[in-house]
């Protein structure tokens, strides 16, 4: 599809387009340079490019919330030819891309960190009486470091626009299920959509964001969507609603790591509380924050490394359950125990991992060790 702005385009004498970034369901995203303030920023424009009251309304909603976990809305412009909003540039990629390109799943500590920060953003939005309505990993910007240090919710703007597109597609879907095609806006939202959205999209409110957060938490912990994708997800949610119970399988790795047994059971309880069928039974964003505050997880810095040794046999021939990781930057080699490895199967030499490290002898000790793609 043709991109609306070529690199080098200068918008309203102020925003110089650097590069096309990507396109979501409803919009094109560009990286730009704000000449007036001499800083990087992000330009978003509706795909059809036209002046759109809903796009503007969404920008206004974004502008009403100012929080460290929400990408700031800087500017909005429209005339007969162009419509765009300008947002804080968050170095990094969206969580959806990080998940598909870097991770299989997150260890419970890292997942808790991500959920905690998204919950703070939701709480602030809900406090301002704004419901996101399109919460999904691709609407969460995360920094490119191994600790996922910066987490910012974005696209309140597009959510408003997506909302009416979703409403339209939803009524079409009810008429004919074949309308749920890969190009539809609805498709990206479906895996995170609460059951009440299907019965009454317009009146679904803040609890739908909490449901979506629960789904994201599940996805982080297991690497899978809780109800699957596309039409399967719809069918599964409908089935759960009919049965009056959500039957979610615990992530496969749960129960296999001694050190995170307690964290797993605590965070699992939180996930289930968010994915409650009755919206009235879900916690508020504030309650989710409080539950996260009580989770026992470490937010120590994560580093990138490569497994360079694992399972060297003892003299008896029995293989050790330990190995070594070489830091990709410092090149130092640290020790790890197989029980701290979050991946499928046993660790293998050459695997890329992220890890925290703690003092030990004769080598420092890595924990947890998370397998990367």
């Amino acid at each position, binding site marked *: 599809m043709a991109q609306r702005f070529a690199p080098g385009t200068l918008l309203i004498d102020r925003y110089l387009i650097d590069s096309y970034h990507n396109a979501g369901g409803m919009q094109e995203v560009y990286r730009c340079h*704000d000449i*007036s*303030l*001499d*800083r990087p920023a992000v330009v978003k424009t509706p795909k059809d490019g036209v002046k759109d009251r809903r796009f*503007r309304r969404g*920008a*206004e909603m974004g*502008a*009403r*919330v*100012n*929080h*460290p976990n929400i990408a*700031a*809305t*800087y*500017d*909005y*412009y*429209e005339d007969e030819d162009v419509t765009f909003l300008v947002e*804080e540039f968050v170095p990094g990629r969206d969580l959806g891309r990080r998940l598909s390109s870097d991770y299989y799943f997150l260890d419970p500590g890292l997942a808790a960190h991500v959920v*905690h920060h998204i919950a*703070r953003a939701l709480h*602030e939005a809900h*406090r*301002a009486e704004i419901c996101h309505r399109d919460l999904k990993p691709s609407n969460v910007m995360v920094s490119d470091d191994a600790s996922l240090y910066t987490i910012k919710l974005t696209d309140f703007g597009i959510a408003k626009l997506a909302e009416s597109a979703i409403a339209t597609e939803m009524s079409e879907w009810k008429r004919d299920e074949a309308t749920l095609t890969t190009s539809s806006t609805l498709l990206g939202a479906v895996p995170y959509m609460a059951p009440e959205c299907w019965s009454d999209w317009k009146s679904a409110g803040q609890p739908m964001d909490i449901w979506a957060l629960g789904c994201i938490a599940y996805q982080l912990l297991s690497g899978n969507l809780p109800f699957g994708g596309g039409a399967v997800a719809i069918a599964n949610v409908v089935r759960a609603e009919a049965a009056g119970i959500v039957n979610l399988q615990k992530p496969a790795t749960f*129960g296999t790591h*001694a*050190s*995170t*047994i*307690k*964290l797993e059971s605590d965070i699992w309880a939180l996930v289930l509380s968010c994915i409650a069928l009755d919206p009235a039974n879900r916690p508020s964003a504030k309650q989710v*924050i409080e539950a996260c*505050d009580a*989770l*026992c*997880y*470490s*937010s*120590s810095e994560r580093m990138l490394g490569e497994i360079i040794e694992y399972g060297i046999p003892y003299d008896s021939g029995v293989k050790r359950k330990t190995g070594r990781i070489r830091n990709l930057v410092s090149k130092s080699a640290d020790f790890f*125990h197989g029980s701290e490895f979050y991946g499928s199967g046993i660790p293998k030499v050459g695997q890329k991992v992220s890890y*925290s490290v*703690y*003092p*030990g*002898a*004769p080598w*420092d*000790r890595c*924990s*947890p060790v998370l397998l990367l793609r």
Partner: protein
Amino acid sequence: MNGPAPTFELPSRYSVLDANLASGGFGSVAKLQDRFLDRAVLFKTIIDADHSDQLLREVRALSRLRSRHVVDIYDVIQDRNGQIAGMVIEYLTGRDYSSFHSEAAKNAYAYMRTLYQLAAAISDLHAAGIVHRDIKLENLKDSAAGILKLFDFGLSSPTGGYQTVNNRGTYVYAAPELFVKGATITPEMDVYAFGVCAWALAAPTWPTELCERPPQSSSKVCSISKALPQLPTEIANLIDLSLSVDPRERPPASDLATLLAKVLVRNSHRGNFIESNRSIYELSQQKTGVKLTIGNLGELRVAYDGLVFRVTAVSVGVYANNVQLAAGMVLHDSCVLTFGQPALGAQRQFVSFFSSHPEVVL
């Protein structure tokens, strides 16, 4: 607005809500409605053209910086000659701190939380190579989300080597070395102002030593613990140090933020001892001590003091990550405890220890 007629026009997207929200010094602040984004913003302009460099410095500092504790900048307005005439910044609707001192005694936590946010702001500035030069209570305000933000960067300068021309800045907040003619601006001066803010947040009046020119000429100011006896000693010490007459004795802003963050999460840690896939013991504010005895392999006592999990007594042959433990050592966030000397091989017992690492939630 006051003063001569402005030499610029406000773009039509803005309508004036309050033409003169504040004025003073060389400029004025108006409250505007941004019709494009349907939100209130502030417009800050310089009336006296001789001080337009001040505005330019502020625009540069705010554009360069991304800190959750510094006000957001949205737009600059140019005059007919293309010079910067004013800037549009975030309108803060939360509380101010002018009368905070009346709450401080009742709520030491809120007091430290405020200081933590101020220290984090200064630390972010200094990391970006900016000295604020005018940190004072009047320049702190909360956003609607209750996050403290620092504003008024009119005097800010790049760190290092910058000479003061005319000693601008507010006197009581000015560090003693600023009273020397031609003083060089340093980050330590912001740290001194942090210490003065700590006093302004704690007490209705200044200790007389701080009001001398130069400050503390007659003697060093008394400890902040005199105003707030309930303050933890390590925090009081740090505030006192930030007011050192010798700038080299003042702690860096990042140290201030780190220690305040630590104290703010005091008593909210949890420490778990896990053996064979189950938690065998949890330490917290409710249960602060444990004695772990594993057969005749060894004995370990650990106590939670509100900040760390510390070994209080241990027998020979008990290791953390393979290091023999000794009384006084602190257990890491994550470590493996081994009971039994290496020669015992498979007869040794292993217990994992994990502690939470709570963050300050604002």
